[in-house]
């Protein structure tokens, strides 16, 4: 009996467990998946929780519910990967042999990287919304906040779902409008990039939206410090931005397990072949989702496309055949723009986000790079799709892993 071990039962690990459960012969392969948590968190929901649009119940469900019966789920912290011996060490001291290993341990925030970020104002006037705790604490704050300077801030790239902080700023604008207190709130969007987004074409569209919503942008800001006493953030060049409420996205890093195992780069991401998703260091290790260092967006939609490619590659690898499938960097993200609207962007390693219609060329019903109510409905529907389709590894109808070019204006 051979054993395939999946590390992490988040978005990517759960999808792989479901795919491989269908594909691997149970008389030859045993599948084990390990996660330290008992609950699966729907992270895209963290964007909506602070504004009372979603409740905690929308966001948290038991992991077990999404893992196939034949797959063994271990609820333990992973201590170390001993790749030379094909072993995974768990925190209680046991170790587990693997024939094939899939790393899907994701990325998490590391506020400790910036001086003062986790200081005395943390969860008083300084919040993150990239954790459940942070989003919930921020919800409670926003319910009573009386206004002032709201600063929405990104520490450094790469981050999960790079549009989420922008969406936060857009949603904040519409939240305060509804509360009839927009005139009491000054919103500033602070980014280390030189514009609203990482891709020039989408940046132009998004910069325009910021202006329209009266959100100021401060670009090229590389934060050195959060000054808790004077409530301002300071960058390495000495630039200072004052805040009454700071909503920051701290540095994102892979799990420390990678550092302990000598498998990560300086941000604990695992060096990975960007088309086959095989680890650069060990042929029997594969990496998908936020845990890898490939130059694709860290997003659930990306993990979904990767899972389809990786399943085929693992089957080839096991048979000793060449891995033919290539991941093209395909990402597909709804960008919530407030007031019940959203836009949709679709891009890959080589193509920038484009205009057009999606998923049916010339028809839609979703429009790329343009605000529409239909896109917003798409974004909210994503929650249902996530829990009921994505995690189970069912392909999304009409949206293949490889990006389609018809109907798009390159």
């Amino acid at each position, binding site marked *: 009996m051979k054993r395939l071990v999946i590390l992490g039962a988040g978005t990517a690990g759960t999808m792989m467990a479901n795919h491989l459960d269908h594909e691997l012969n149970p008389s030859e392969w045993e599948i084990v998946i390990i996660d330290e948590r008992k609950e699966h968190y729907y992270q895209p929901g963290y964007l909506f929780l602070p504004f009372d649009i979603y409740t905690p119940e929308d966001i948290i469900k038991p992991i077990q519910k999404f893992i196939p019966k034949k797959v063994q789920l271990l609820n333990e912290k992973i201590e170390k990967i001993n790749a030379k011996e094909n072993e995974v060490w768990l925190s209680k001291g046991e170790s587990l042999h693997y024939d094939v290993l899939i790393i899907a341990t994701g990325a998490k925030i590391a506020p400790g990287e910036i001086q003062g970020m986790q200081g005395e104002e943390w969860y008083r006037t300084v919040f993150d919304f990239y954790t459940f705790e942070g989003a919930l604490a921020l919800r409670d704050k926003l319910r009573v906040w009386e206004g002032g300077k709201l600063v929405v801030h990104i520490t450094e790239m790469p981050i999960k779902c790079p549009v989420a902080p922008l969406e936060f700023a857009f949603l904040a604008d519409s939240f305060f409008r509804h509360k009839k207190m927009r005139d009491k709130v000054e919103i500033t969007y602070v980014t280390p990039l*030189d514009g609203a987004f990482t891709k020039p074409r989408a940046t132009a569209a998004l910069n325009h939206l910021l202006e329209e919503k009266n959100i100021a942008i401060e670009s090229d800001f590389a934060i050195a410090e959060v000054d808790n006493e004077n409530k301002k953030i300071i960058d390495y060049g000495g630039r200072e931005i004052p805040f009454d409420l700071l909503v920051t996205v701290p540095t994102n890093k892979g799990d420390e397990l990678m550092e302990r195992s000598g498998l990560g780069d*300086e*941000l604990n991401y695992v060096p990975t072949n960007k088309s086959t998703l095989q680890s650069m260091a060990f042929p029997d290790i594969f990496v998908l989702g936020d845990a890898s260092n490939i130059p694709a967006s860290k997003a659930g939609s990306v993990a979904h496309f990767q899972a389809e490619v990786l399943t085929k590659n693992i089957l080839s690898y096991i048979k000793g055949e060449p891995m033919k499938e290539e991941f093209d960097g395909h990402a597909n993200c709804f960008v919530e723009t407030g007031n019940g609207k959203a836009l949709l962007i679709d891009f890959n390693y080589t193509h920038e986000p484009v205009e057009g219609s999606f998923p049916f060329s010339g028809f839609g019903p979703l429009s790329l790079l343009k605000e529409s109510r239909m896109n917003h409905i798409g974004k909210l529907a994503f929650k249902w799709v996530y829990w009921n389709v994505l995690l189970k590894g069912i392909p999304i109808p009409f949206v293949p892993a490889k990006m389609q070019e018809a109907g798009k204006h390159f």
Partner: protein
Amino acid sequence: MEKAICNTTIEVNEEGFMINFSEWNKEIGEELAREAMIELSERHWEIIEYIQDEHRKEVPLSIRKIGKSGVVDIKEFYALFPKAPLKTATKIAGVPKPASCI
């Protein structure tokens, strides 16, 4: 697009980043620095050389990585190439704008 510089022409993108690193030489670097209003010192050159080495090794660049390189700390990097140091330094070094931002 083409850009005339130091009695020759180089290929640049719309932001002024060189497209072919092989077209770069020290003279061009000096001229690009002048355009960015930077007078290059010994220290500047050490950093530019480090950036070019990393580029040759195909290692993606980020401010964090440069800060941890042992060549320069982030504070000094900002002092040498003010405002957007990574962008300015890579432009002068003739390497593509870092895509540490996806």
